[in-house]
């Protein structure tokens, strides 16, 4: 769809009809009210109205390129009034010059032309205001519609991300497998089973109350990640180990709640379960120009899996960071030398 009204066929057709109607009205007025002969009256009406309407089209750009959010501001109104005055004045001189030259030896008409200047100016301004208003309303309506569409898109993204986040935290695979492990532990190590139930319920409590926009301290998030890995360690035993290297001064910084979870789930799935000899899952923090960088890495054995770009987990992290910080460059991830590395950047104010 062409959003530029001036180049829209239907608009141009209507505008032409409007112009013709106004010309006709003017003709009737000049001919019958001021008793000017048909030829003069018709020429006058046609030249005046067509020229004015053509010149007024440029008002569209004045309205359009006043920025949408300042459409109703004083500057915008002042500019429009100024543009209107300029156009109408220019039109007035131009039509007078043209008509004067066309009919310079018909005194009756010349007299009328000079006498009617004030009236023409008022009528011209009136027409300018009408055209301006129609442009203004159309563009305003367009901008409202655009804003509404943007908002609904954003709302959809929020909903999708929230739902996805919830789904991710409550990976049913993880829960059922953990419960199966607990069932097994009750037989040969009831003590450990009890301990694991505690861990699992602690984790579920955090995961279940999650909201995509909520923030949490880094230290709490590190605790959650530890909780998750401890639960998974019961399943994977010695295959799973981890090493966190978090600077003390970063511990109180705020990060989105559960933002690391998809990365740790991936680490367990691709870096531990799929690897015969996995190394530890590592987390390290670093401050760079007021940006807190969190690096997470794990082994990625290419023998039996391939890195196929960002899956649901990484996409979810990226979407949440975009929702909260309005930026799409806060997650970097990739595989090199059989190590998967992800870096989450958190702007700190």
């Amino acid at each position: 769809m062409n959003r530029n009204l001036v180049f829209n066929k239907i608009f141009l057709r209507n505008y032409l009809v409007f112009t013709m109607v106004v010309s006709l009205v003017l003709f009737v007025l000049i001919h019958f009210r001021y008793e000017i002969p048909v030829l003069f009256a018709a020429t006058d009406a046609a030249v005046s109205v067509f020229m004015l309407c053509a010149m007024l089209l440029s008002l569209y750009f004045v309205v359009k390129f006043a920025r949408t959010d300042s459409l109703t501001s004083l500057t915008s109104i002042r500019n429009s009034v100024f543009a209107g005055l300029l156009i109408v004045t220019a039109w007035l001189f131009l039509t007078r010059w043209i008509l004067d030259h066309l009919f310079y030896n018909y005194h009756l008409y010349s007299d009328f032309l000079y006498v009617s200047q004030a009236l023409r100016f008022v009528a011209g301004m009136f027409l300018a205001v009408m055209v301006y208003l129609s442009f203004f309303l159309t563009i305003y309506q367009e901008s409202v519609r655009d804003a509404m569409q943007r908002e609904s898109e954003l709302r959809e993204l929020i909903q999708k991300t929230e739902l996805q986040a919830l789904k991710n935290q409550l990976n049913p695979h993880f829960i059922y497998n953990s419960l199966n492990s607990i069932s097994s532990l009750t037989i040969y190590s009831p003590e450990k089973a009890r301990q694991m139930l505690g861990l699992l319920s602690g984790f579920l409590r955090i995961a279940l109350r999650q909201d995509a926009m909520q923030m949490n301290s880094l230290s709490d998030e590190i605790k959650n990640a530890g909780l998750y890995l401890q639960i998974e360690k019961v399943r994977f035993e010695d295959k799973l180990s981890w090493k966190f290297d978090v600077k003390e001064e970063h511990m109180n910084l705020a990060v989105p709640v559960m933002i690391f979870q998809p990365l740790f789930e991936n680490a367990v799935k691709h870096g531990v379960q799929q690897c015969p000899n996995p190394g530890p899952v590592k987390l390290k923090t670093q401050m760079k120009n007021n940006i807190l960088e969190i690096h997470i890495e794990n082994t990625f054995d290419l023998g039996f899996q391939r890195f196929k770009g960002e899956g649901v987990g990484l996409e979810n992290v990226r979407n949440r960071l975009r929702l909260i910080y309005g930026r799409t460059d806060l997650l970097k991830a990739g595989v090199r030398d059989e190590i998967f590395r992800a870096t989450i950047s958190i702007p700190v104010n």
Partner: protein
Amino acid sequence: MTQKIKTLIIEDEAPARRLLQEFLKEYPEVEVLEECTDGFEGAKKILELKPDLIFLDVQMPRINGFEMLELLRGEDMPLIIFTTAFDEFAIKSFEYNTCDYLLKPISQERFEKAVNKAIEKLKDKNNLRPDMNRIVDEALGGGKYLDRIVIRSGSNIHVIYCDDLLCLEASDDYVIVHTAEDQWVKKQTLKFYEEKLDPAEFMRVHRSFLIKASAISRIEPYSKDAYIAILHNGLKVSVSKAGYSRLKELLNF
């Protein structure tokens, strides 16, 4: 019953294996020969030990339960009890084919029901077994297009990613899988791959050829109604008239 039921547990998580072992203590007639921790080992042990019954986890490292079964196509198969945590697609396939499966966390009651049923089936030699080929064919890929093909040659197992595939060729009961460097023989039908590989990438150009569109280097006319596609590795592939028009549609030329 004098002869014991030879059983394998194929499961990657130690606690889950221990749970099965624990439940099996109630069944002295069931003898667990070995525990395998992935599909790779599982396939080898099934061929080597010829068990009567296996407990098979679906989600496992290296190759999963279904890929393992696909490798053993045509072999004498044991009775299978699947174990899985959550896999809607697999479960649908099991139910549809009336095959026994245990959902994790596994309850002892449900476990005993499954094992009792298996023992009954094993006693009765005429008992109909579910069609494993069908279950496997349905469940492979988990409802999505395949991203790899697992192939056994001798005692070796190879995983070929679809990114590396150039062409699949039908040959009797087998499919010859062509990659840039190698050719592999796989017991499967071309029709299966036509359905299971992404149609945006792979295309049936001939009765016996399924090719990856991006692997074509050029196409030459061969006879009145036939063409020859030459792939990046130099392989020449017959293209039928129908295949040619399908290619035209996909590649927009």
